[in-house]
Each structure stands twice: as C-alpha cells, then as structure tokens.
C-alpha cells in the first residue's frame, strides 16, 4: 500500500517540465486499461523524470510490473503547473499519492533556496519516504499517528503555526490530495483569505483538450478560455490541473 517510485529516462522533455504539470502514461499495449493514466511529475533530474504513484487499479498495477529497460509511451509535459510566483510564504501540502506534484515544487524551491514548508500526510507510516523534521521545513502527518503529527495535514499546519515555525498569515498554499483534504484546504484558505492553489485529479480520457471530458465547474463565470466552449467550465487537462481554490465550486473538488 506504499508509494511506488518510477524513474524514466525522457531526454529533452525533462527540460520542458514545470512543477504541477503531468504526463499521460500508456500503461500497456492492450485494452485493459484502454486509456492513458495521468501522473503528476514528481521531480526532474537532468534528463530523467520521476513519478510517485499508488497502485489502485489495473493501470497502476501494470506500471508496478514494469522492469528496468522497458520502453514506455508517455505524452507530456501537460497542463499548466503551479503558479510559483504567488506572494506569501509557501506551504506545500500533499496527501497520499497527491504528494507527487507538491514534491516536485518542493525540490524546485530548495534549488532556488526559497524558504517554504512541506507537509506530507498519509494514512500510516508506510507511504512516507521523508523524515519528519519541522525545524528544517518538513512535516509529516499520519491518520494513525505512526509518524509525525497524528491527524491531517491541516492539523500539522496548525501545529506549525502554534510552534511559530511558519507565519500565521500571508501563507500561500499549494495542495494536492484526496477529495476530503482538498475540500478542507479550500475551506481553510477561504476562511483565512489565503492564496491557495489546488492540483485536481479529474478523470481524463485524452489529457490534451480533445475529449472535453475533464471539465471543472468554475465559481465565477466569464473569463474562461474559448476552447472550453462555455462560461461555466474549464478543462482540467489544459487549463489545469492547478486551479485557484477560490475559483472552484466546492462539490467539484
């Protein structure tokens, strides 16, 4: 039930990737599954691309059986990526496999020596590959208390504020995780009028704007790109997967 790590030699594509973007992975040649599987880019190292994923169905199970040397068909980098130029002290929150896009941002912020805090939450310790070390900017949380803070990523966030390890205001949140966590984050950010970006994981058929299947309802109509054919929706694959929390309708998340 832990996270799998996959390192892919992608060549030139690596130089194009930005945190928050994803690749669309063909998990096999047959028709089970039929479509590609979107996976956030969890890191870039030279000409290598890293993924972090959880096995939840046939597609990810097939990925977990890949051998070193196999050739993989993937499309990317896709999507908009995080807006890392946002004001405020960056707090990055990843829940479960949602750590992937957040982890890549973390690495980039480290590289540019930008102060920030990374909070990773999971059900239990086995999904964790980081060390809980709040003083150096990394906090963990587990539902069962087996590592880091017992509770959710928001509980960990509160603890950090209490301990004055991060500012109480002027935060800029970057979150990705299961629906419950995303909703809680959006609510929290709304209440405290904090800047908050969420990387959604809508089901996608194409990942490149062809199928119109990944629409996301927007709170504020208007100002939507023309290719979405409408005022009310945006396409998660080309307008997202990162959206400002305040622009989203809660049930969508």
């Amino acid at each position: 039930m832990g996270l799998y790590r996959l390192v892919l030699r992608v060549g030139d594509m690596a130089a194009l990737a930005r945190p928050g973007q994803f690749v669309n992975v063909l998990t096999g040649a047959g028709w089970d599954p039929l479509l590609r599987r979107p996976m956030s880019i969890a890191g870039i190292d030279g000409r290598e691309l890293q993924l972090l994923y959880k096995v939840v169905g046939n597609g990810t199970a097939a990925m977990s059986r890949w051998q070193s040397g196999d050739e993989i068909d993937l499309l990317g980098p896709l999507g908009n990526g995080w807006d890392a130029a946002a004001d405020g002290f960056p707090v990055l929150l990843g829940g479960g496999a949602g750590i992937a896009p957040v982890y890549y941002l973390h690495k980039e912020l480290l590289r540019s020596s930008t102060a920030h805090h990374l909070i990773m939450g999971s059900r239990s310790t086995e999904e964790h590959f980081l060390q809980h070390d709040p003083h150096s900017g990394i906090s963990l949380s587990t539902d069962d208390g087996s590592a880091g803070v017992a509770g959710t990523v928001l509980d960990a966030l509160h603890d950090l504020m209490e301990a004055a390890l991060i500012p109480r205001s002027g935060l800029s949140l970057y979150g990705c995780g299961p629906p419950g966590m995303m909703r809680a984050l959006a609510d929290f950010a709304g209440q405290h009028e904090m800047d908050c970006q969420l990387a959604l994981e809508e089901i996608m058929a194409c990942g490149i704007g062809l199928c119109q299947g990944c629409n996301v309802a927007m709170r504020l109509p208007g100002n939507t790109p023309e290719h979405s054919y409408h005022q009310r929706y945006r396409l998660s694959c080309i307008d997202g997967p990162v959206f400002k929390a305040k622009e989203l309708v809660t049930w969508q998340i």
Partner: protein
Amino acid sequence: MANLTIQLGRDVTLSNPVMAASGTFGYGDEVPDLVDVNQLGGLVTKSLTLRPNEGHAPPRIVETPAGLLNAIGLANIGVEAFCAGKLPFLETLQTQVFVSIAGATVGEYVDILTAIERSGNKIAGYEINISCPNVDEGGMEFGVSASITETLTAKLRQLTGRFIMIKLSPNVTHIDAIAKAAESGGADGISAINTVVGLDMDPLTGQRSLSNLIGGLSGPAIRPIALAAVHSIAGAVSLPVIGMGGISSAEDIIRFVRAGATAVQIGTANYRDPAVGVNLLARLEQLMEQMQIETLEEIRGVIH
C-alpha cells in the same frame, strides 16, 4: 504499390480512408504539434449546435471494459463562433473537412447548415448527427425514426450541393431501414456508428459515473456491434458507408472495409494516441501488400 485514395462521392476524394471522428479531434486546431492533420484522409469537426453549448456538468466520462462511456452533452462553441473563429483555419487544411451539425429541431439543422454554407466554401461537406444518445440536440429521436430521417435529409439536400453524410445510431431495431430512409432523402453517404447507450456508477457509493446518468459507449468494446451495423447498412443502400466504432489498428480498418465500408473514422483511439490515424497508414499499406491488393475497393464487402 498500395493506392489509398478513396473516391467518396462525385466531388470528394480522400487521400486515404482514415478520418478523425466527430467529437474526438476538436476543430482540428487542438493538436497541431502532435500530429499533421493534413495527412488524414478527412476530419469531422465536433458537432455544432445553433447556440454555444457548455455541455453537461462533470463528470462526463468514465472508462469501462475496453470502452469509454461519455456524456459530454455536445459542448461546442456554436455555429456563429465556429464560422468566425474556426472555419478560416479549417479552410487552410489540405485534408477534407466535414462539419458535423446537430439540431434540436429540423429548423435548427437547417439554420446551422445555412450559416455554414454562407461562410464556408472550401469544406467538403457535412455530417448530420442524428444519433447522439445524451442530448436533445442531434438527438436520437431523429435517428430512430426512418420518416424523420428522410424528411430531415431531404430538407438539407435542398440547401447544399456538398457531400452530406447522415450519422446513424446503433440504438435501433433496424438500422438498415434508417439508412434506406437517408438514402431516399438524398444523402451522399452514411456514417455509422455513433455511440451505444450505456450507464455506469461507482458500485460502493452509488455515485453516478456521468452527471447525465446515461451516456454513449465507444471504443474497442463496441467494434463487433459497429461491424454488424456497417454490414447491415452496406447491404441495404448503394451509398458509401463511412464505418467507425472501436477502430484502433490497421487490422480494424480492414475489418470495416470487409464489412462494407468505403472509408472509416477513428474516435476514441485518438485519446490514446492523437496521431493514431496517421500512424496506422503505414501499417495499412503493409497489410495491403501482404493481401496482395492495390486498393481497398478490392476487398470491400468481401467476407468468406
């Protein structure tokens, strides 16, 4: 040497038998980086409605065994924005462009087609969508009635000299009768099939997989159903049949030709690989050499 050219109608020649299916290739301008659209035999645009249409609320797609179930709800920019914003680009293409149209009434079909006739002069023709299983516009009420199909076709026939293909629904008892009605109405071709009515939900939560509940099934799962439909239509009319439904390999293209298709469209497979249509052509030529045929016409309708 294989010759892939297809004479679709009196005035329409395709450089090869492979077109992109409506709703699976946008307006041809979405994928310029990934694929050279001009290498396709043809391109059918996303179905246009009279007014811009935001489509159904999310979620609108779900994967099923070897299939994709969708209820996009004909999200599209509407005919006005199309004529202003998309048609100029489409008219620069070398490939044959067919504009798909979907009305909620016969009058709407007429209005949409009239508007395009007025603005466009280089498109090859139209695909008349009377077979979308999840909306009123382009809806199956048309596609399941032979008499409405004939009336509608005849109306549109009067408005244009361009190629008109009527796109049929598999969700009927006798698809051959609907095809005959389209032929009587003056259609130039029949395209089939549109998606098959389907439904799915999350078993544990009971959450519907599509906000619209009912959707249309596409992809490899429906290939045998589509082949049977094409075979039935080809036996009933003397118009060219443009076959589709689950095509994802060059072998599949040959299957549809053997079932009676003159050309084919690729839908869902574009989502796996947007260049699939172009990529299959080389393999198709290879198979034709293996079969020792020069044109697909030699095996059209040939099943032993």
